[in-house]
């Protein structure tokens, strides 16, 4: 069913939309469906998806693996691996509906797990080590188990995606039945590789999820850079690298969110030359994270357990509009997609190219809330990076 020999990227022009409630109030899935369907012309029926945060209350402390599988044998292999490597709390098929236009969908199942450390590490339960463990597990499933992919792996969040128009995918996954405090949605128009279930957006790792309109021309450079840190790009779509870069720069290297965005979409050298105080910092970012820079046109929305961020490439080759109404913040490809769900926003603006729109929940709003406005203190990160991120450098191929 899935042609895995095509190891290339795709170019696409898509529609994106995102909502966040700063006080953590839950928003029905119907809202994001309405917004993304308003941009129907931006897609061509070859991919759509949603990311939702806050959908598994009561299960907040378990990593939820959404697994997409070609057949039940692949699922069995996944389950065998999970039995060895995790404490499995609960599992169930992801509820779906039959949709006429969706032919031969893959199997979808979700697993609520905790890492099972081996030997002396068993007692450790710090967040960074647990997260790293899950990243490694996801990479292992994606690269080693034929026909199985983890499409999301964060706590209290999940991704639902596939081949179809947004309304079809929403109906298939019963999106309107979920309630979340952050939603992102995507409507895909792939032009370079076949639209396949794994290639739909959002792309995720842990609780990072990315929806993207555009094309990451630097995919090759980014992919090779990420491989040095144990990330394997298996989903045949350029956007995947963005999820892993964010995980690397922000969660593992501990960069503040703004600095990480500067690494992804740095100012031009001609602008840096005119800076005074920030010149040194920007020069350092461009030199150290040159391989993490995203080239090409993009408008992305990325979310995590605690925030939603919108970012454009530095010359704004893709549209992005933002709006605010009370505690709600909206971002989308088109203003109409926002007005479809919020007809009279307090404020509408077009974010500046390369400057992130960062919206975080108010402090202590949800369990396991993450905030990346500030970087991680230094003493922590160096040891974490040295000792616990000992990834097997290269996985054996499948």
């Amino acid at each position: 069913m899935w042609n895995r020999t095509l190891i290339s990227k795709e170019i696409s022009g898509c529609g994106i939309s995102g909502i966040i409630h700063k006080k953590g109030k839950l928003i029905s899935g119907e809202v994001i469906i309405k917004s993304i369907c308003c941009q129907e012309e931006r897609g061509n029926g070859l991919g759509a998806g949603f990311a939702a945060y806050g959908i598994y209350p009561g299960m907040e402390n378990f990593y939820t693996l959404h697994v997409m599988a070609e057949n039940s044998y692949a699922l069995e292999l996944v389950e065998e691996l999970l039995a060895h490597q995790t404490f499995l709390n609960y599992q169930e098929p992801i509820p779906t509906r039959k949709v006429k236009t969706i032919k031969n969908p893959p199997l979808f199942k979700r697993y609520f797990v905790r890492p099972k450390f081996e030997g002396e590490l068993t007692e450790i339960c710090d967040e960074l080590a647990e997260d790293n463990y899950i990243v490694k597990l996801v990479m292992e499933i994606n690269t080693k188990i034929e026909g199985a992919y983890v499409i999301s792996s964060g706590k209290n969040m999940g991704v639902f995606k596939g081949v179809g128009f947004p309304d079809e995918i929403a109906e298939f996954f019963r999106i309107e039945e979920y309630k979340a405090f952050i939603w992102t949605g995507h409507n895909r128009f792939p032009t370079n590789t076949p639209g396949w279930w794994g290639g739909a957006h959002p792309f995720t790792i842990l609780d990072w999820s990315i929806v993207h309109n555009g094309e990451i021309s630097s995919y090759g450079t980014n992919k090779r850079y990420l491989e040095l840190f144990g990330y394997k790009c298996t989903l045949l779509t350029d956007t995947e690298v963005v999820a892993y870069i964010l995980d690397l720069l922000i969660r593992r290297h501990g960069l503040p969110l703004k600095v990480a965005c500067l690494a992804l979409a740095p100012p031009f050298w001609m602008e840096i030359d005119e800076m005074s105080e920030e010149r040194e910092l920007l020069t350092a970012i461009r030199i150290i994270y040159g391989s993490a820079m995203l080239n090409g046109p993009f408008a992305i929305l990325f979310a995590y357990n605690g925030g939603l961020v919108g970012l454009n490439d530095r010359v704004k080759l893709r549209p992005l509009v933002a709006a605010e109404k009370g505690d709600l913040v909206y971002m989308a490809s088109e203003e109409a997609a926002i007005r479809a769900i919020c007809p009279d926003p307090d404020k509408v603006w077009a974010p500046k190219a390369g400057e992130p729109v960062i919206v975080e929940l108010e402090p202590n709003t949800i369990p396991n809330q993450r905030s990346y406005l500030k970087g991680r203190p230094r003493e922590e990160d160096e040891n974490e990076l040295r000792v616990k991120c000992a990834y097997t450098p290269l996985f054996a191929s499948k």
Partner: protein
Amino acid sequence: MNLELNVHTLHYSQVNRILRKAIEEGKVNFKLYGVNGHRYLAAGISKKVKIEIYGTPGLDLGAFMKGPEIIVYGNSQDGAGNTMDDGKIVIHGMGGDVIGYGMRGGKIHLYSDAGYRVGIHMKAYMDKVPVIIIGGKAGDFLGEYMAGGIIILLGMFSRYPEKPIAGLFLGTGMHGGAIYIRGKVKESFLGAGLKPYPLTSEDEKLLETHLKEYCEDFNLNLSEIFKADFIKIIPYTHRPYGKLYAY
């Protein structure tokens, strides 16, 4: 001969079909309510009709049109006035990116800010001189590859107090036409081969004519606009890129 219509539940192709049919039948005044993301409104229409739009029209508003007057009570999305030939678009809010792309005639009056790449590839011939007036600020690449026409940037009615009046790469590749700016721009932001000049008396006359009409559209005071000095940005040689590929 009027038509009022709430298009909220209609697809843009239906709306355009209704518009075209009504224009065929001789209707000249239109009011569209509930517009949200409807694409290509009035695209390619070459009759002198007046269309008032309430809401946020979608991409390529009035693309290729030749004659209609469109008034938008709201913001416009990207590509308004794409390759338009004649007529006028008045936008009472902010505009999206690539407004007036390849415009070859007619006018676009924008009350507030414009996005990126506004007026790129504009051109002029004989009496066909397209005009874009922006009341707010503009993003990068304003007037890129401009070959003719007039862009007037006021920077007055902006929602971005922190931004400079125009972005980077202003007029990159420009080899014709003129960009008038109320205020100053960093010369390092200008494309190669461009220079700011003070206004001549002819420029002043031209500005007055265009801005008078602009003020009427938005009920503004012309003398307020002339309280600050303008500069004119044009290429300083006849063919700034004439030798680019000839070595």
